């Protein structure tokens, strides 16, 4: 029987209250939301907080809100809510692509976008999604609010810029016309970690050429969106030759490790092939948005 080591439990009532509790209990406290990463780690003693601060009652952090040219998503928004949101799917189809293959439907009822990003597992899909979409992370702490880009927020495997006395409260996504995005994952079975995955976001210029683009990889040894992808893609017409070139770039830039999910050359092949697929789909979606 796997049971966490003893801890004290407290339920936060508001964001302010959660920040007070974090300040009071210090680095030995941990915030729990969906709990589907933290509780398994606590069972295995990979995490042993003295205090668990439950933020599931912070309904103020559970929202999806269009605000001018930004979409604001509360950190406590569940995966199921993101998956089912037509507004999110319309603006950022990559989110629905990814949410379909995150864990399984029952786990998605509990897991949150904030928890996923703060866990920062290398095989975690939403870090890649938020990275290619150029999301901003809104963090609150004793010193007030700060807004970080994903490259500042995500520091690497299991490490983010969120301090022990801070709380990730919101993600903001810029809405741009003529934009499309896509995500594709290869996994051994439902609910398993990715063997590899890729995400892409593309904005087209009025003449149909690529105006801006980002490509990211999951579980393939690339912490941040592919450097240089935009430089290669910008100003060119999206076609098979271009997708193949981007695929080669991704395969060269990635740094996968061999494990029970596959050898390095297979994973490198995935980086290439999946990059081509998501770019093809993202460009098609962007063109569709242009027509619509």
């Amino acid at each position, binding site marked *: 029987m*796997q049971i966490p080591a*003893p801890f004290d*439990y407290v339920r936060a009532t508001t964001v302010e209250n959660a920040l007070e509790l974090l300040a009071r209990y210090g680095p030995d406290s941990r915030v*729990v939301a969906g709990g589907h990463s933290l509780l398994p780690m606590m069972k295995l003693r990979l995490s042993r907080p003295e205090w668990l601060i439950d933020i599931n009652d912070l309904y103020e952090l559970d929202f999806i809100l269009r605000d001018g040219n930004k979409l604001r998503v509360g950190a406590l928004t569940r995966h199921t809510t993101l998956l089912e949101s037509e507004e999110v799917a319309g603006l950022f189809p990559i989110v629905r692509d990814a949410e379909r293959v995150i864990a*399984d439907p*029952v786990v998605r*009822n*509990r897991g949150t976008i904030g928890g996923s990003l703060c866990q920062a597992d290398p095989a975690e899909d939403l870090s890649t999604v938020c990275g290619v979409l150029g999301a901003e992370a809104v963090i609150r702490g004793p010193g007030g609010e700060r807004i970080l880009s994903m490259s500042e927020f995500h520091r690497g495997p299991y490490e983010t810029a969120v301090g022990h006395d801070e709380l990730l409260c919101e993600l903001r996504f810029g809405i741009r016309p003529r934009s499309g995005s896509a995500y594709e994952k290869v996994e051994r*079975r439902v*609910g398993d970690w990715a063997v590899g995955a890729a995400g892409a976001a593309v904005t087209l210029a009025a003449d149909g050429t690529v105006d801006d683009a980002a490509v990211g990889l999951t579980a393939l040894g690339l912490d941040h969106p592919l450097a240089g992808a935009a430089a290669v893609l910008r100003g060119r017409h999206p076609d098979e030759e271009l997708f193949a070139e981007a695929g080669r770039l991704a395969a060269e830039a990635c740094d996968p490790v061999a494990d029970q999910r596959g050898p390095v050359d297979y994973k490198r092949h995935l980086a290439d092939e999946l990059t081509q697929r998501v770019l093809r789909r993202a460009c098609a979606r962007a063109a569709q948005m242009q027509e619509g």
Partner: protein
Amino acid sequence: MQISMTVNGADVTSEIEPRVLLVHYIREVLGLTGTHWGCDTSNCGTCVVLMDGQPVKSCTVLAAMAAGHDIRTVEGLASGGTLDPVQQGFMEEHGLQCGFCTPGMMLTARALLDKNPHPDDAEIRQAISGQICRCTGYATIVRSVQWAAAHPAGSGLADTAAADTDTAVPDVAAETEDTEVKA
């Protein structure tokens, strides 16, 4: 710490350690052993219960986190001696063999039908894709859920079908190869 919640419509209050998981609270403190405890790692789904109507894996929810919420277990499916159509469907269509995964499967099915009364087979397979059956495979479970969808509670169809044994015999010739959700 003291926690209170509603379980199958009844208010319960208990003194527990914060580290007690919901599955163990339900089984050991409340004595409702219909909820099964399986993999401990939120993979197998036999511990699924409904929390405010949504399926959750109770091995990965603390009892303390469930405080104040409405919990429904397999014991809460039947009402007044009448089986839920999902339970009847598992009987009619041979939805179980050893029965270990069955409580979780049935609760997920109940939640699916509450949200989507007429799911297609792919939607049922998607809904149960986080749950593992190692006996029957999934074809009969999908058929069981379809049976429940075709015989909703209060429609009178469930009673008629239960009395008519012919409908309880699976049409073997019509069975297709089971393409399993799980590897």
